[in-house]
């Protein structure tokens, strides 16, 4: 029971919200009087509401009877797998763009997502990747002359 409560996404979300409000409210007490007025005005009720919501979620989770039918278990498993895959890809977007910048990382990521994650055809993945490069490099960098982020690794390598 306690493990199920601990791993419940609703409870974790409410707990994070409570944590954010508590930490921000505690930090606000160290600000000068004028600077802390508004953060405390919303932080204190936010902490109280956060606690209330957390208690409601715990109560709800304790009263909940989990659906343990094979179909529901399979559905939950599939959802978890898809969620993990999507989070992994968003993380890859973040890390590759941070490291290699938009021009190099974006076409590569579009290709990877389509070909590896979604099993699209090689032709679709290559065409999409080229289109992305044209838009990012051709339109933004060359035509609009917007200096795009080059990536921390590329910046470090090129000095």
């Amino acid at each position, binding site marked *: 029971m306690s493990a199920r409560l601990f791993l419940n*996404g*609703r409870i*974790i*979300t409410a707990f*994070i*919200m409570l944590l*954010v*409000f508590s930490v*921000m409210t505690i*930090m*606000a007490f160290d*600000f*000068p009087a*004028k*600077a802390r*007025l*508004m*953060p405390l005005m*919303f*932080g204190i*009720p*936010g902490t109280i*509401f*956060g606690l*209330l*919501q957390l208690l*409601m979620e715990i109560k709800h989770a304790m009263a909940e009877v989990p659906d343990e039918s094979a179909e529901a278990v399979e559905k939950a498993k599939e*959802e978890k797998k*898809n*969620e993990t*895959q*999507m*989070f992994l*890809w*968003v*993380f890859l*977007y*973040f890390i590759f*763009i*941070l490291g290699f910048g*938009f021009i190099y990382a*974006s076409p590569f*990521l*579009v290709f990877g*997502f*389509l070909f590896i*994650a*979604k099993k*699209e055809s090689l032709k*679709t993945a290559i065409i*999409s990747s080229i289109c*992305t490069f044209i838009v*990012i490099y051709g339109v*933004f960098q060359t035509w*609009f002359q*917007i*200096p*795009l*982020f080059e990536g*921390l690794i590329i910046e470090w390598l090129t000095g």
Partner: protein
Amino acid sequence: MNVIGSPYNMGMLLLAVPIGMFFGAIPGLGGKLGIVMMIPFVFGMDPIAGAIFLISMHAVVHTGGSVPSILFGVPGTGADAATVVDGLPMTRNGEAGRAMGASLGASGVGGVIGGLFLICILPVLRPVILAFSPAEFFMLAIFGITFIAMLSGNSLVKGLLVGFFGLMLSFVSLDPNTGAERYTFGLLFLWDGMDIITVILAMFAIPEMIALGVEGGSMSLAGKQKGTAGYKGVFTGLLDVFRHWGLTLRTSIMGAFIGMIPGLGGDAATWICYGHAIQSSKNPEKFGKGAVEGVIAPETANNSKEGGSLLPTLFFAVPGSSGMAILLGAFVMLGIQPGPAMALTGMDIVWTLIWALMIANIVAVFFFIAFVPMLGYLSYVRGSLLIPFVLALTFLGAFLGHRSWENLIVLFVLGGFAYFLKKYGWPRPPFVIGIILGPIAEDSYHKAFQLWGYEFLLRPGALIMIALIIGSVGFYIWKSTRPKKEGVVEYVG
């Protein structure tokens, strides 16, 4: 006559409209960047033609901005985020065409009414603008914040928490009064506060794309045959604007009025008008699930506020919004000197700009109507094909906001958290209200307090606003407690 009578000026207007819509449709670009990039193009041009080009481009930015908001839940600016709340559910219900038709019609009508409002208010402009002091600003911000409760649906505590979360994040910056660092952890990029575009993309675009990847299928959950992506849907949406003529008229005027007040910010206008649409609706339970009124209200306000914000820009050289501040600079570069002297010597330019503003909004409707059905069919494209492009554009949009790579970290962390907010039914729209109105409320409170102490609450304008707040909240509570035909109220998470 300067606009219609001259083929050259009309040509400039026709050229500016698609460019403005393009800048609006790409997250992170927006109208401000559009004007900045087009200044070299108009430099040295005839001042009237250059001004027509820039104002026409700026006037229709939000018309284009509604497209990614409705189709993918990716708002380009804070003002466009209000359109996501009902626009995206309409797309999910297979009504992308109708949503875009309504958005187009509302944008066009809003822009025209904004222009007409401008004409009507010209004689009484000065006393109206001067009537707004920090006390009234503060109460207007509080008025907007009360809409958090209305946008919370059946989960009031969750809604309040998300709204307060937005408010708390809006305080991340150097305190404007004391200069003290607040929640910046010594990071320089946080000194100016969180970038609005980044946090809005994190709250809406990232969760929507993760959810689309998890669920599979396309943005539209309805089959193609059931959907209304074609012309039929677009015209239904256009007619909806006139079917809800009262709302269209009210939100257009409200948008223009709020746009006229320097310092309040145009983003606030769309959310206040959205809140008003919920408040005045006979069926508030439909909002967040795909109510066409939820698209009409923010879109009319989005375009009409540009008319309103043109007034202080031209007559007092006080820009009504950040976009207008750049436009003001561009006007000066063109040789047009905004200021009180405009009323005496520059009225022909003022009238030209008002007409350009209205005609550009009408042209945008006719121009875009040809493309809308085609865009509507994007909602039936497989999610797996859309996600990688939208994700790339979302990251790009976050970077372009402040040209700071640290925004990518904010986007990733906040976006991941926002997915769970969506998954577990936490309403996200209150967050945007909080982050937009938080700094306005804080800044105006301190100014009002310094000027009048707590007596600022007794100023006539503030008292009127307090009465308005009590009246609107009371009216909403009265309406909410009445027995409803449909039981469950569920808002977009």
